[in-house]
């Protein structure tokens, strides 16, 4: 009996919690039907933190959960591609429970780079349909165009491989939390610099983005492409599209 009562009590508590969570979720949705970023309550502050180098997903998660911060955005770079991943509205609260915005960004980036590779393939195929090897072989402008399309492919393939291999992507985060949490986090050794909104935290307050590490300003090109002639580039593109 006791066990049944105990289970019943747990079920009741679970039901109440579920109802509360659902109500909070509905309230959030109703209050913010378009998912437009809302200003934080007075007790919440926003800031962005930049890191001196790239942090792993688990380090970002640890930073957010240690200081009880909501992650609103992460700033990323991989293989010459600068990026951002942002979550809005109710999604913020859902991810805040686990500090999971870093993993969310990785999943989104993987899907992103896969789609972007398909897009690149379409442009390369169009180029090959439009121009024979004679084109980039004799026209310097077409040679530049084809080399750049292949370099984009190289960056996207590398970025996709990096994302799948779990290599660190994130050089900064935008967060919300109590003033005490923000102050404590900005002194964390992983944080290189902090940015706060210039005009407080009203609804128009914008959080400046963190600075990119210097290594993220590098141009990433396929070294093999640099010395290839226009005809070689055409042959390479044909080979890649045939795979």
């Amino acid at each position, binding site marked *: 009996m006791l066990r049944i009562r105990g289970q019943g009590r747990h079920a009741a508590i679970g039901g109440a919690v579920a109802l509360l969570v659902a109500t909070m979720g509905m309230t959030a949705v109703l209050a913010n039907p378009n998912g437009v970023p809302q200003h934080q309550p007075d007790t919440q502050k926003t800031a962005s933190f930049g890191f001196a180098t790239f942090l792993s997903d688990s380090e970002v998660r640890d930073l957010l959960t240690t200081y009880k911060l909501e992650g609103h955005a992460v700033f990323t770079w991989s293989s010459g591609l600068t*990026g951002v991943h942002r979550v809005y509205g109710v999604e913020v609260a859902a991810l805040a429970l686990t500090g999971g915005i870093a993993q*969310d960004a990785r999943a989104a980036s993987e899907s992103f780079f896969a789609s972007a590779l398909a897009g690149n393939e379409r442009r390369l195929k169009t180029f090959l349909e439009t121009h024979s090897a004679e084109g980039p072989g004799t026209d310097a402008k077409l040679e530049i165009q084809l080399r750049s399309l292949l370099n984009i492919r190289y960056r996207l393939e590398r970025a996709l491989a990096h994302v799948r291999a779990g290599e660190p992507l994130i050089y900064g985060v935008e967060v919300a939390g109590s003033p005490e949490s923000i102050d404590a986090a900005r002194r964390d050794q992983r944080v290189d610099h902090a940015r706060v909104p210039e005009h407080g935290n009203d609804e128009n307050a*914008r959080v400046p983005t963190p600075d990119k590490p210097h290594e993220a300003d590098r141009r990433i090109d396929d070294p093999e492409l640099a010395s290839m002639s226009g005809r070689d580039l055409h042959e390479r593109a044909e080979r890649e599209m045939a795979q």
Partner: protein
Amino acid sequence: MMSEIAAHVRRYVVIGMLLGLLLVSLPPGLANAYHRVTFYPITGDLLYDGYTFADSYFRWDTVAAKRTDYAGYEHDLVIETKLFTRCTSYTDLPRGYDDCPTAGWDEESDHEWVFTFGSFELDAIADYQYYMGAWRLGGGTSMQGNFRLYPQESQYIEFCPLGPYQAWCRKSYDSEAPFVSGTFYLANPPQFFQWNLSD
């Protein structure tokens, strides 16, 4: 003899002046028909995959800023407000940045969101070379709705303390008509839009 030479000189001067006037009065597009100097990419495209992803490829003939002071370039995709809960954006532009964070915050219309990527350094962009950027939006009805894609030149706001490589320290100029506009249809075949301003 001297008067004949003087007459020839006068004739050539007049012809030269007329040719000069003709060149000056030509529309910029015609005067640079084969070599356009612009702050915006002269040709490009936008591909929507029919679900959550859109990318854009573009290139300049000859890139040049209209303004100085750390001139930059912005590629703005404006979409009707929908139930987005996620945005991911990347670009390979040099000195690149992505502006998903500002989407809808203080744009003129509350019915639209603006998704931007760009370069802080127009000077770092190379002629004839393709660049790309893309957006992946998640949640709700995703990317379905009316859209327009347009270019902006950006400029550093003088004395802004965070410096020129910070989106919040830049102002933009809505100086050009959209490259392309239309409607994204969800769960339909991919849609492809192009612009070519070289003619």
